[in-house]
């Protein structure tokens, strides 16, 4: 029967059955030998236990079939060799009790031994099952050890029964240290909600998810994303909880950090907005309140001049003129400053701009300054640009007005507007003149507010034009730079990313 439990021996089943009967015969023959020998030496009555022994041995090892054969054979041998008449199978009534006792004894032995064999077979089967299960469990457990998640199982009274390698790595406790402990006490769990509520949900849904705080072996705290699954027994009663935990401490820390940064950003934005509002109010007040007194100064000075021109000498007349000129200049400065600050405050309204057309418009706008001048305009091929049209117009008006202004001393001014081949999605446009130029030493001062490289008597202006240009270009994500030589002209460049292909509204 043991052989039958092994599937690979089915083919040799018949042979082994035959063999068992051969062994049964052999057992009887082996018992017969000593019995005959002892009879020869006049030892009587030993054949009975010897045959019983042979039957018992056969039953023990080869089962009840061979044992039955052994009983029959033993009885025949007993009758033939040991009862009168000797060497004949004929038996008398006097032999009957002996034979019956023998057969009864033998049958009893066979019965016992068959029971034993059955029990043994059952035991072996149970053992095999158990071994299989153990192997499977071991494999599963080692699979759980492969994962980086920390997994442990606890029974319904919170006692840890399984602890994988991930848990060991996360918490720093070995399985033998953890198993048998109550998990919440052991890990000093901090729950996001009352444990009763969590338990309720777990029983209801069979699972629960949430964030827990645990304390590790080294005393540090970890935040884990925890998933609990309820395991139920055969009758549906909750039997264990598997808890899978992922360390999200670092993620939480980053989240907190980001949240903090965002809050800071928000408060800074609010602050900035408030500052902007303040600035706007300031600009408004400059626009409105500072201009009024200037207008009055200029107005009354002129009225006075008109009224008193008869009595004023030439010097006084000039003083009056100076007052008016200064008032006018301050008015211009205020206007330019306001325009400059407005660029930073107003939203850009972008559209596709034809720069060639824009340059022609800008030339038209500086026409007043070009009257009576000999100027050769060279306008090269200019790209289309995605930007704020009115701001860009201001850029070119400023650059061209500068070029016109600083070529004033030339008998023939040459002003070139062109574009350089640039990278994809970027434009480079330049304005070049043959004017008085500048010393590259001072190139950094060109774009500052109120920075001037020439005395205002020679070249008038408030010193805000190039600062305005720079601010507009910067608001388009670009940059400006200049090259020049004293008395050999200047070139102003602007470059900016150009998103013609994907314009955004």
């Amino acid at each position, binding site marked *: 029967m043991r052989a039958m439990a092994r599937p690979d021996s089915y083919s040799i089943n018949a042979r082994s059955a035959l063999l068992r009967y051969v062994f049964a015969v052999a057992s009887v023959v082996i018992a017969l030998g000593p019995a005959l020998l002892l009879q020869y030496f006049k030892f009587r009555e030993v054949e009975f236990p010897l045959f019983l022994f042979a039957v018992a041995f056969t039953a023990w090892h080869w089962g009840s079939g061979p044992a039955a054969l052994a009983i029959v054979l033993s009885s025949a041998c007993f009758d033939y060799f040991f009862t009168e008449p000797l060497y004949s199978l004929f038996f008398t009534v006097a032999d009957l009790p002996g034979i019956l006792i023998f057969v009864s004894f033998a049958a009893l032995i066979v019965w016992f031994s068959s029971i034993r064999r059955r029990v043994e077979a059952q035991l072996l089967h149970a053992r095999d099952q158990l071994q299989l299960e153990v192997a499977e469990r071991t494999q599963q457990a080692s699979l759980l050890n492969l994962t980086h998640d920390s997994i442990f199982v606890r029974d319904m009274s919170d006692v840890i029964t399984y602890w994988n390698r991930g848990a060991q790595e996360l918490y720093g406790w070995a399985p033998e240290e953890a198993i048998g402990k109550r998990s919440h006490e052991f890990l000093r769990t901090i729950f996001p909600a009352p444990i009763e509520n969590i338990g309720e949900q777990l029983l209801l849904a069979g699972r629960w998810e949430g964030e827990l705080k645990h304390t590790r072996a080294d005393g540090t705290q970890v935040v884990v994303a925890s998933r609990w699954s309820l395991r139920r027994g055969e009758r549906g009663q909750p039997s264990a909880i598997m808890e899978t935990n992922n360390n999200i401490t670092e993620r939480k820390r980053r989240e907190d950090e980001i949240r903090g940064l965002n809050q800071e950003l928000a408060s800074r934005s609010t602050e900035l907005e408030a500052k902007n509002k303040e600035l706007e109010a300031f600009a408004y007040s400059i*626009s409105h309140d500072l201009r009024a007194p200037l207008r009055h100064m200029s107005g009354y000075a002129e009225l006075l001049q008109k009224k008193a021109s008869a009595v004023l000498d030439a010097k006084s007349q000039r003083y009056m003129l100076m007052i008016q000129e200064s008032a006018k200049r301050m008015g211009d400065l205020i206007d330019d400053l306001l325009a400059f600050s407005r660029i930073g405050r107003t939203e850009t309204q972008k559209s596709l701009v034809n720069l060639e057309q824009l340059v022609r418009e800008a030339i038209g706008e500086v026409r007043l300054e070009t009257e009576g001048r000999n100027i050769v305009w060279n306008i090269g091929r200019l790209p289309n640009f995605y930007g704020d049209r009115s701001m860009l117009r201001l850029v070119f008006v400023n650059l061209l007005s500068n070029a016109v202004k600083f070529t004033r001393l030339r008998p023939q001014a040459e002003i070139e507007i062109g574009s350089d081949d640039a990278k994809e999605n970027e434009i480079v446009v330049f304005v070049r003149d043959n004017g008085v130029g500048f010393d590259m030493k001072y190139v950094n001062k060109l774009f500052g507010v109120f920075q001037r490289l020439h005395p205002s008597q020679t070249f008038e202006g408030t010193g805000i034009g190039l600062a305005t240009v720079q601010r507009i270009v910067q608001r388009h994500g670009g940059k400006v730079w200049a090259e020049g030589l004293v008395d050999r002209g200047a070139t102003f460049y602007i470059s900016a990313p150009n998103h013609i292909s994907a314009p955004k509204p």
Partner: protein
Amino acid sequence: MDKLGRILMVEDDPKDVELTLTALEEYNLANEVVVVGDGEEALDYLNCRGAFSARSGDNPAVILLDLKLPKVDGLEVLQEVKADEKFRMIPVVVLTSSREEKDMVASYKLGVNGYVVKPVNFHEFVNAIRELGVFWAIINEPPPGSMKK
């Protein structure tokens, strides 16, 4: 000057008033200018109430309106004028120091007829006032019901 219309000037700054009147005088336009110092007075004048309860009910030919005014500011006056059936036809010209786009947009949205930024330079200022006066008090045909001299 039998066609000269009456001008209602709303201006709180006495210097501006003086300079404006001087500029108008130079062109003989100042004889029919009513000056009020704030928005409330302007509305009182139009509605013939308060200090102006005794005046005859004709509308001015044009209102020259400053924006920054005590009590009721210029934009509020503009809004009331343009919302009132009796006054909405009166031409209103904003005459202000503010070059702020915000003010300009708000004024036009409320239906202003003109927006003039007072030039700092007196010459330009006089020119602007003269042109305003000539256009609105002489050239422009005011709506029916306006006061004509």
